[in-house]
């Protein structure tokens, strides 16, 4: 029995040519935004793409939504090639980006949404009916006749999200959709997304995020992407289960007195140490091969006159999965990326 894939890619890659900087001749001439991406997303799946800023998530979305041609490989959405059959793909998809400012400020929320519905061939009566339904679902009904220029960032983002669902897409791409939303609104969006997928298993949703909680809570499967490559792809539970062999401890300690955490990583059974210096004290996170290694760690700290203020064990998260795969946290990876290091 053949599996019905909503999204399929093979060897997908994208290279950008960079503008020549005459002052910095040793700068690279091209940027590899994506490389060798192989994905298969089944119909009815809520699929997550998790990675730091600059990982290639948006580039992948742009290719899948026919806005960007791949440099290598191919991709299919709803069974059609995104590069060669764009006309067949477009009626079946939609996309929402976080922080976008689509539409026109002088139009009301309802008018903006109606306008976009027309580009998908939806008849006005049906469009208005569904728009009103979605406005209610996102608690935006009372602002339906407000000009979008008068909305706050968060409310405008809600309008954008409604724009994505309003056209009844078979495959919906959400690129950091909760950017700009408060905690409550983000929760509402996540709840709606889950309901939307569950209502009709012909629908597929690909969500990109750099928020672990979002990926963990929502997604059936998650692909972790970094520097244009997919490092792992599985259910959140399975990804974390790999780490469950290991034990993760958070320690709040007094100042490190100049001691380097590299010394702790030399201890047998210590996989990784993450150090966050704070005001007058430090936070250390140890990923250990097994619990029994903890005593050696405590001993090593005591010998160096480092006092343990607090110690907790925690369950692995997708962030830990990322750290294990990449060697540093997402925040560190983003920082390294912006400094031009480590590429």
């Amino acid at each position: 029995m053949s599996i019905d894939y909503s999204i399929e890619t093979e060897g997908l890659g994208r290279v950008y040519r960079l503008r020549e900087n005459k002052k910095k001749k040793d700068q690279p001439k091209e940027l590899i935004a994506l490389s060798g991406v192989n994905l298969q997303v089944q119909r009815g799946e809520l699929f997550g793409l998790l990675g730091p800023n600059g990982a290639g998530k948006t580039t992948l979305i742009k290719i899948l939504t026919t806005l960007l041609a791949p440099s290598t490989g191919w991709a299919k959405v709803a069974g059609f090639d995104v590069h060669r059959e764009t006309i067949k793909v477009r009626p079946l998809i939609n996309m929402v980006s976080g922080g976008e400012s689509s539409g026109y400020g002088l139009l009301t929320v309802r008018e903006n949404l109606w306008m976009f519905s027309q580009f998908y061939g939806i008849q006005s009566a049906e469009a208005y009916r569904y728009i009103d339904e979605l406005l209610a679902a996102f608690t935006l009904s009372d602002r339906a006749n407000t000009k979008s220029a008068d909305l706050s960032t968060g409310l405008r983002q809600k309008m954008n999200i409604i724009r994505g669902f309003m056209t009844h897409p078979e495959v919906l791409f959400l690129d950091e959709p909760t950017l700009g939303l408060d905690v409550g609104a983000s929760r509402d969006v996540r709840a709606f997304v889950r309901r939307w997928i569950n209502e009709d298993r012909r629908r597929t949703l690909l969500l990109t995020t750099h928020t672990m909680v979002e990926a963990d809570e929502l997604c059936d499967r998650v692909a972790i992407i970094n520097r244009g490559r997919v490092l792992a792809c599985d259910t959140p539970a399975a990804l974390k289960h790999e780490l469950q062999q290991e034990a993760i401890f958070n320690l709040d300690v007094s100042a490190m007195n100049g001691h380097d955490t590299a010394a702790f990583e030399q201890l047998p059974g210590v996989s990784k140490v993450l150090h966050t210096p704070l005001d007058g004290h430090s936070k250390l996170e140890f990923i250990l091969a097994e619990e029994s290694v903890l005593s050696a760690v405590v001993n090593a700290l005591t010998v160096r006159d480092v006092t343990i203020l607090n110690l907790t064990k925690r369950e692995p998260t997708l962030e830990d999965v990322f750290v294990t795969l990449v060697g540093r946290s997402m925040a560190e990876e983003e920082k390294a990326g912006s400094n031009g290091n480590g590429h």
Partner: protein
Amino acid sequence: MNMRSFRTAAWLGWKIESNWTDPFLFAVYSVVKPLAGAAILVVMYSIITNGNFTDPLFPYIYLGNAFYMYVGAVMTGVSWAVIDDREHYRTLKYMYVAPIRIPLYLMGRAVARFLTGSFSVLITIVFGVLFLHVPIVLSEVNWLLFFVSLIMGVVLLALMGLTLAGVTLLLARHGDYLGDAVAGGLYLFSGAVFPLDVLPAWLRPLGYAMPITYWLELLRRSLVGSVAQAFPTLSSISNDQLLLILGGMIVLAAVIAVVTFRYCDKQARERGYIDRTTNY
């Protein structure tokens, strides 16, 4: 702080204006646009007078049109910065939050347009002198009068631009440049391309009330005194009197600019227009 705001704004304006990826295209733009504008009038003149470029009316029209390019350039430079920063770059709100004087910032942004406008004016005049017998003789030019008039005119235009910038704070972004539209409208009353005597009697007072009229007259007198003398419209007014009138009008323009900008600025803040987008 004030000079720093102005200088930084001028630098920014230049960065934006000169951000062409193709220098050749920039060169074409800088030469073709002003010459095409002048050519319309040259062709119109040539058809009717059978190419009689020695008549004093021709340099009157030609020089008036050439320097009038400053009107659109400077006014647009000041006022368009509001639209550009508000709608396009979305930085106007940050400028408002910063400890700078917004009017100075806007005027600084116009410096680049003034420079590109100067290039256009120069190209047009040089072309006129070389190919169309515009009778400018460098040794006979009253350079002091020319530069004083030019500087006064640019200050005047910057103030007018500031008034327009204030109004722009309250307007949506429609089509093309508002500065150009206003310049186009004032073209009728400024004696730029025809003496004010040609206007119907009931419209002439508007021309006399327009400071640009006196500015252009001063520039013509400084460059080609004989041409200016050929037209009686302002011939009874001496150079010093013209300078005095222009100076007084600049002061008036400054008062209008400050009052208008303050009022519009206050209105824009009350209505929340500083960071709105109105593109449609």
